[in-house]
């Protein structure tokens, strides 16, 4: 029982990192109807920025984190400004956005390998590796911090989307881009801001992930997990992405704890396919039909 509880906590904490990235996927998808495959790499580059700041430039840790998040925001904005926007404006099919994102993802991953090498880099030990003992259940401090931070950030995100003027604009563009444009919403600006927001979330996720494990060029593959999470939740739905992410985190930890860590991915992927068969547009997505 205690082991299960412990794993649930770990699962939720991993899930919360997925949630940070997945909500970025969902935000971008809701506006542009494409899966931003380069999002995982944004996360990776954010982690490297933070690492470089703290290890090479010897900045204090909090400043490095800010720089890491800032770096991720910059990369995300760069992708939008110089790639996606151009593809949108020349009227190519949506598929090309995804292919471009795939190309960017490959580019960044290999760029990181060329610059920093393939080795694992360790983030400084800011928090003690100690764990709290809550009624016999051991919870790592990093896990706990990670969880707390994520919850706060995600609550703020949901508030931004649902309560602010900017959030209203985002929802308007998501609903009916062109109409929103006619009604005076500056679409490109909203999209750019959303990319920055998504980048910030990804940067934070990258730093947390790097602290929990390591920093390495292919760590962007965590974006794949987040993508799966957002598919489970329903593409384009931020709450769906969060639910999907936590669910995926839980399934992964429980599967590796009770069945086999080798089969972890098999189980989560099979579950993904199963969910899609029952709900073809994810848990909270809407199945849109092509209107004749």
């Amino acid at each position: 029982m205690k082991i299960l509880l412990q794993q649930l906590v770990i699962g939720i904490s991993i899930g919360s990192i997925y949630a940070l990235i997945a909500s970025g996927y969902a935000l971008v998808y809701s506006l542009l109807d494409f899966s931003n495959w380069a999002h995982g790499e944004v996360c990776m580059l954010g982690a490297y920025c933070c690492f470089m700041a703290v290890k090479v430039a010897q900045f204090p840790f909090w400043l490095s984190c800010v720089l890491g998040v800032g770096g991720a925001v910059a990369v995300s904005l760069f992708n939008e400004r110089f790639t996606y926007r151009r593809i949108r404006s020349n009227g190519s099919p949506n598929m090309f956005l995804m292919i471009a994102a795939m190309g960017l993802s490959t580019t960044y991953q290999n760029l990181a390998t060329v610059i920093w090498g393939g080795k694992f880099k360790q983030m400084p030990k800011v928090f003690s590796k100690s764990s709290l003992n809550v009624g016999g259940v051991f919870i790592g401090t990093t896990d706990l911090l990670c969880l707390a931070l994520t919850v706060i950030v995600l609550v703020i995100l949901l508030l931004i989307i649902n309560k602010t003027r900017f959030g209203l604009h985002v929802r308007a563009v998501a609903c009916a881009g062109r109409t929103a444009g006619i009604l005076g919403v500056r679409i490109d600006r909203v999209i750019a801001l959303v990319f920055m927001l998504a980048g910030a979330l990804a940067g934070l996720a990258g730093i947390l992930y790097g602290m929990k494990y390591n920093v390495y060029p292919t760590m962007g593959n965590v974006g794949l997990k987040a993508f799966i999470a957002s598919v489970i939740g329903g593409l384009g739905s931020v709450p769906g992405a969060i639910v999907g992410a936590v669910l995926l985190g839980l399934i992964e930890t429980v599967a590796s704890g009770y069945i086999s860590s080798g089969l972890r991915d098999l189980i989560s992927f099979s579950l993904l396919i199963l969910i899609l068969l029952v709900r073809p547009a994810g848990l909270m997505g809407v199945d849109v039909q092509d209107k004749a």
Partner: protein
Amino acid sequence: MLNAFQEGVVVVVCVNLIAVLGMSVLTGFTRLFSFGNAGFMSIGAYTAAICSVQLRLPFPLAVLCGAAMAGFIAFLLGSLTIRLRGDYFLISCLGFGECVRVLFNYTKGLTGGANGYSGIPYRTTAAVAFFCAVLAFVIAWNFIHSKYGQSLSAIRENEVAAAANGIDVVRCKKMSFVFSAIYAGWAGGLYAHYLRHITPALFNLGKSSELIITTVLGGLGSLTGSVLGTLVVQLLPEFFRGLAEYRMLFYGIAVVLVILVRPAGLYGYREFSITGAVRFVRRLGKGDGQDG
């Protein structure tokens, strides 16, 4: 006739060409994305290997079994997932590919697990590979120019209109999916009999994206473009051995540039033809720039 190095280059190019042709039919002509074709390649490779080592089947039959098995699995998977829309289909394929890899890693008794499967006889000579590649190209060409292939292009262009013209969209998509899986399986079977030792890691997600990258670079909706793409992607690193570590970096950048500058790829939506080339050269000679 050929030294070992040249022989290897020919085999690798031809084997990849077969897999890329399958991808081209699926992505270029039907606009369905599969990140699972490396999975079908591995199914073909392992099936063919087991057939020829354990069951002692002759080489052509073993490869045929591999291709058939890949096609059969694709048929089963497609029956479940082909109705999923856009990215949901894509992620289900991706999930499938990863499942296959994990499964081959896990079934040590049959496949040798992560250490791989060895003792496969060397049968795929340059001549065999070349013959297969030509055969694959001719069959794909006939398929694409038949009513079946035209239906696929129609679906790519406009699904609703395709259905309104009597095309059974679901059935055609499934056919395209199975076709591409058979090609992947065929390529896998040949590859196994060239390498003599195969591991699940050979057929990872990276391999799937390499296939897609090649298809995009060559040009969507063009079989001759796919040939060109394969030659570029497979041969360039052979000529620039010193730059091997930058290989994927270049491809990533190339994909982004192609999508930005020339979305139809090197040779998109049209096929290379001698008469066309002659006409083009003549027109250049005349310099009148008139469209014939």
